[in-house]
């Protein structure tokens, strides 16, 4: 099987997020960039499926600026066979439509049997690229996959979709298909030393830029801002011990603590 896995490079969510001077994106200086956590599960799933079907290959694709190569390489460190970068140099917000269009242009020529994506990107949280890509390539798709099994003859994939309240729905998709996976579908592996060494010398080719030919101009991000604090919230101040005392006093007044009056 020929498998494509889509990996996005995002700013580490534990970094302090500040709005950049344009007011339209975060200030990126000093931020750490890494693979979108949701995509790690997609990489793991692609490797599990590849290993179950001898002769299969996994290609990891990342659309982004030059630094996105590191994320494609990270997928190789985890075990992917090759990495590709689609150049996307526009700083700031990029419409998922444009990203899906670029990946579709790559995928069309390659005829993948299976495309895997993460549930969503940690940065823009749109959860769109997977389902957009499937439609652009005219292949069936399912998102929120918490389990996936390829049939023995590699003609179909059975997907368990996680829906509201922890219930699941079962869907069979004929291959080629696209599946967006949910965290929890597997435990992403850590890179092995041999794969890290292999990734080091691996060339990450850059796809030829394709002119975006959209039916219409995409949506525009006009402003990025920090959320307001709700008026009801009170940040406790003081030393850690003073905060502990204050919290204790609050809980006691609300008679939530054992023995409190």
């Amino acid at each position: 099987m020929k498998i494509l896995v889509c990996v996005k490079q995002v700013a580490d969510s534990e970094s302090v997020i500040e709005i950049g001077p344009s007011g339209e994106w975060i200030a990126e200086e000093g931020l750490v960039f890494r693979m979108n956590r949701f995509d790690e599960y997609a990489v793991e799933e692609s490797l599990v499926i590849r290993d179950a079907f001898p002769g299969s290959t996994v290609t990891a694709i990342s659309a982004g600026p030059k630094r996105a190569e590191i994320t494609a390489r990270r997928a190789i460190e985890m075990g992917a066979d090759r990495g590709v970068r689609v150049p996307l140099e526009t700083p700031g917000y990029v419409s998922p439509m444009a990203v899906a269009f670029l990946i579709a242009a790559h995928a069309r020529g390659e005829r993948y049997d299976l495309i895997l994506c993460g549930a969503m990107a940690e940065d823009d949280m749109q959860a769109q690229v997977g389902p957009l890509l499937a439609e652009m390539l005219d292949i069936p798709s399912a998102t929120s996959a918490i389990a996936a099994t390829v049939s023995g003859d590699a003609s179909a994939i059975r997907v368990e979709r996680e829906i509201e309240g922890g219930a699941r729905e079962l869907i069979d998709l004929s291959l080629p298909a696209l599946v967006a996976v949910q965290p929890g579908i597997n435990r992403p592996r850590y890179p092995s030393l041999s794969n890290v060494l292999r990734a080091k010398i691996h060339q990450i080719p850059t796809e030829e830029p394709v002119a975006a030919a959209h039916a219409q101009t995409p949506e525009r991000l006009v402003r990025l801002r920090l959320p307001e604090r709700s008026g009801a919230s009170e940040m406790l101040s003081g030393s850690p011990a003073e905060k502990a005392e204050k919290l204790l006093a609050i809980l006691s007044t609300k008679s939530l603590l054992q023995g409190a009056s």
Partner: protein
Amino acid sequence: MKPIVIIAELESGTPHPASFEAVSFARALARLEPGPLRIIAFGADVRNAALEIAAKTGVDVSALENEHAAGYTAGLWKEALATSIAPLDPRFVVVPHTARGYDFAPGLAVRLGAGCVTAVEALQMDDGAIGLTRSAFGGKALMHIVPPEGCTVLTVLPGAFPPEEAAPAAPGAVTILRNNARDARSRALGRTASEVETASLNEAEVIVAAGRGIGKKENLALIRALAALFPRSAVAGSRAVCDAGWLEYARQVGVTGKTVSPRLYIACGISGTAQHVAGMKNAQTIIAINTDPGAPIFNIAHYGVAEDLTRFIPLFIEACGKVYKV
């Protein structure tokens, strides 16, 4: 004036509450950019649901009946909806941001040659244009997005636009249409219910919840010790903690886990993304302990403690011990 089309979601033949929220959102949109509303309901058995939706909203409903739609697949939904929406030439197509909605909405947008913006949680005017507000960066920032000029498919975050209370003057008209869409490439095979063992979380008055910020499984001992201070308490976790295998999924709080409303919810090392908050925002008192003062959990917490939980929880337990001799 181009219409605003709302896609109702049905669950075993009855309207999903998110459908009514989508109608509220569409009305808010129409106040900013006027256009007539129309609801489309698609399913194997839609008649009763369509009548109920028309009665409760006063909006006209097109009910698309298709015997193959007893089970959901994105392929079937996109096919059926695209062919019935395209002739209406709408300005907006509004879809609930549910496990189904976000599954088919982007592909539907491609079929309609439309734009797509997901998980919209507020609306406002931005420089004379409609601005859609949605969360980004794990809820640490909010985006204002101006949709493109042509048709745009929008998904609306459940809980953001409460359904209208007032009954309409008159019910909307219901048109039942046969729909012959097929999806030859995917097959729905049915549903399984969620696992049981919800009792302990539902009955608890106090829930102490662990997030990825606990750092390692061993630190659950701290969370358990904190919970032990309270009578009728239980330990729960964020998705990240359950995915890591630190807690069983039956203890996960959020959209794909349990919805809880205890008297007190203590979120420890939880960032506070919309998916988690959806499951606990109705707790009477919310306390958050998180090292990052910018963590979005502090936006909904009643009391915030910006500290390292491995340091703060022992201090708190100690303070309790002094007072109550635990």
